[in-house]
């Protein structure tokens, strides 16, 4: 039984896992690249080991170094978080070979679900509905794919076999577009995953992305924790999640039906640990297996809030060989939870990444607010890693209460130093279609623009005018001062000496 856990990740998820370990009385080992010496996960862990230069391939993706640190520190287990090595069967295998508990599923389950075609074939064989496509046929050439495409029918999606997160994905509306789209998708997949294999899938229009959280232990118990609604996406990246789904709502039979199918899908690969079955759901409540994420999800906190289950602690319990703390009939959903992903991106500039030093922050706090983050005032946001800097999660008795609380929390949340997606969420929560719960996965891209959203809301142009004018006026006054003063100049080192003396 392990008592020390190495967290093979960084950012908010490393902090999340460290917290769970600490609350269970387990020792924690952080790893960090040269860019992350000051990161919160390094500060919060009991031990911290440098594993190389900033690029992930030289540090967070270096299995050899991670295993070396595990051995050196005496860590008996590794939690991979999400991303990086979380869905690498070879890493899970390497841990097993070294006698280190991998806090996640078995290599075979990762490998099966990681290859989208095999995954679909496996769950389809277990009676789980899948989206029509080229599942099960690996390494198809462009010519083969071009021949099959018309049989599936357009529109369709080209997706990377090794993919995830929208990388290597292209939508195609006609055969003419296929050759170029195939080239682009393969190149992107190759660059992102080192594997250019792709497959085709029918595009379900007007679809919602709804997923079921699974927990499975080593004693044959597999349960689900209800659904999450993840249809608010942009370029196939989730931006905002909630649980329950407003589409499922009070339809408990539908929820349990999806849940039971999800449990079957997980059992089809002998799954253990926490995992997620993603479904595409059409307007008639048909649902299709999309893929399984064989790891902890970014959006796991919304499920934790409504069920009261600590998913990360359960993962650790499972890895320690313990049975689940809950049976299926002990799982009930109370109230409503929502998560807004706060990315260091500028929503007014095409979600361009924004880097820089976090100069100042005021965090939203108070009742029903949870924040999962890896940043603090003074930290530098670098260009090397994911732009997710914080997750704002709220709980309310009803969806309406949760929306109101999320609005006030977003209003309170102040970050100075980088641009963030906070204004995006503020606009999203004012959209009548969002409030009504009637949106699909295309909502953000097709029916939403920041500029239009801004224009629709109550505005205060006179207040903006006052603010800008007063600030501009102050700047002008200050500049005038300085020009006057600077007439008598002195050399730089003199100034510096005095400055240091006075300011130390």
């Amino acid at each position: 039984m392990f008592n020390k856990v190495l967290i093979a990740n960084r950012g908010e998820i490393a902090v999340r896992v460290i917290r769970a370990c600490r609350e269970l009385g387990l020792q924690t080992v952080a790893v960090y690249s040269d860019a992350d010496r000051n990161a919160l996960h390094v500060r919060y862990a009991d031990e911290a080991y440098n594993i190389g230069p900033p690029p992930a391939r030289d540090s967070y993706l270096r299995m050899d170094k991670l295993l070396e640190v595990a051995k050196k520190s005496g860590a008996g287990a590794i939690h991979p978080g999400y991303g990086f090595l979380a869905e690498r069967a070879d890493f899970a295998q390497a841990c097993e070979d070294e006698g280190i508990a991998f806090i996640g599923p078995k290599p075979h389950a990762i490998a099966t679900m990681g290859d989208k075609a095999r995954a679909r074939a496996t769950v389809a064989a277990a009676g789980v509905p899948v989206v029509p496509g080229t599942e099960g046929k690996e390494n198809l050439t462009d010519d083969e794919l071009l021949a099959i495409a018309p049989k599936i029918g357009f529109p369709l999606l080209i997706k990377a076999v090794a993919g995830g997160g929208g990388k290597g994905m292209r939508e195609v509306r006609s055969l003419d577009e296929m050759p170029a789209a195939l080239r682009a998708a393969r190149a992107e997949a190759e660059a992102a995953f080192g594997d250019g294999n792709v497959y085709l899938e029918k595009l379900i229009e007007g679809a919602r992305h709804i997923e079921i959280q699974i927990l499975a232990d080593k004693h044959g118990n597999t349960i689900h924790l209800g659904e999450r609604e993840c249809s608010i996406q942009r370029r196939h990246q989730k931006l905002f999640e909630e649980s329950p789904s407003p589409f499922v709502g009070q339809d408990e039979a539908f929820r349990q039906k999806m849940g039971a199918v999800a449990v079957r899908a997980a059992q089809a690969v002998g799954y253990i640990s926490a995992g997620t079955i993603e479904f595409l759901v059409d307007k008639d409540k048909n649902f299709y297996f999309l893929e399984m994420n064989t790891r902890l999800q970014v959006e796991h906190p919304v499920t934790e809030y409504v069920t009261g289950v600590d998913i990360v602690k359960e993962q650790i319990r499972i890895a320690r060989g313990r049975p689940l703390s809950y049976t299926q009939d002990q799982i009930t959903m109370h109230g409503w939870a929502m998560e807004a992903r706060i990315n260091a991106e500028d929503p007014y500039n095409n979600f361009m990444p924004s880097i820089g030093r976090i100069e100042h922050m005021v965090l939203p706090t108070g009742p029903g607010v949870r924040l999962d983050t890896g940043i603090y005032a003074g930290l530098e946001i670098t260009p090397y890693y994911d732009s997710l800097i914080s997750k704002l999660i709220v709980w309310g008795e009803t969806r309406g209460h949760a929306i109101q609380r999320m609005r006030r929390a977003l209003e309170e949340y102040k970050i100075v130093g980088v641009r963030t997606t906070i204004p995006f969420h503020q606009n999203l929560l004012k959209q009548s279609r969002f409030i009504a719960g009637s949106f699909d996965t295309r909502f953000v891209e097709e029916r939403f623009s920041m500029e239009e959203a801004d224009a629709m809301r109550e505005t205060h142009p006179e207040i903006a005018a006052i603010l800008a004018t007063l600030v501009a006026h102050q700047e002008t006054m200050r500049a005038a001062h300085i020009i006057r003063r600077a007439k008598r100049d002195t050399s730089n080192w003199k100034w510096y000496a005095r400055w240091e003396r006075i300011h130390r």
Partner: protein
Amino acid sequence: MKYIATVNGQEIEVDILDEHRVAVNGEEYEVDMVAMSNQPLYSLLANERSFEGYVYEVNGQWQVLLGGTLYEVVVEDEQIKRLRKAGGGRREAKGPFLLKAPMPGLVVKVPVQEGQEVQKGDVLVVLESMKMQNELKSPKAGKVEKVKVEAGQAVEQGEVMVVVAAP
């Protein structure tokens, strides 16, 4: 002191009467503005209504982010503005456009060549950073004068990648 603040295209006259009073299009406001923690985050009490906004300068324009809404504001001295207007026409960016890297990153693609005509909104460079591919577009029409980077190249923040001259 009188200013003209052009907020998202709408002209608003802001007259700073004294330290705690301004007139906005003639209507008087009692104001109290404080920079919170010495940051560009301001608390403004205007006739006892409480507002909080970020105020950033970007290319000589002010961006005011207020309650989740972004306002683009140009602030000009009223006299100077009047003189300029009399002189004819708005100030217009005439020089070449220098596309600088907004962050360090890896150039994934440069879909334009030197000498090529581009339209406003055409992609000049695709830059990878924070695990995302970002399309950097031309803010105006013109001719590509210089391409200083190529695919696969790493760039520093602020590095000039493409120059677009007015047509």
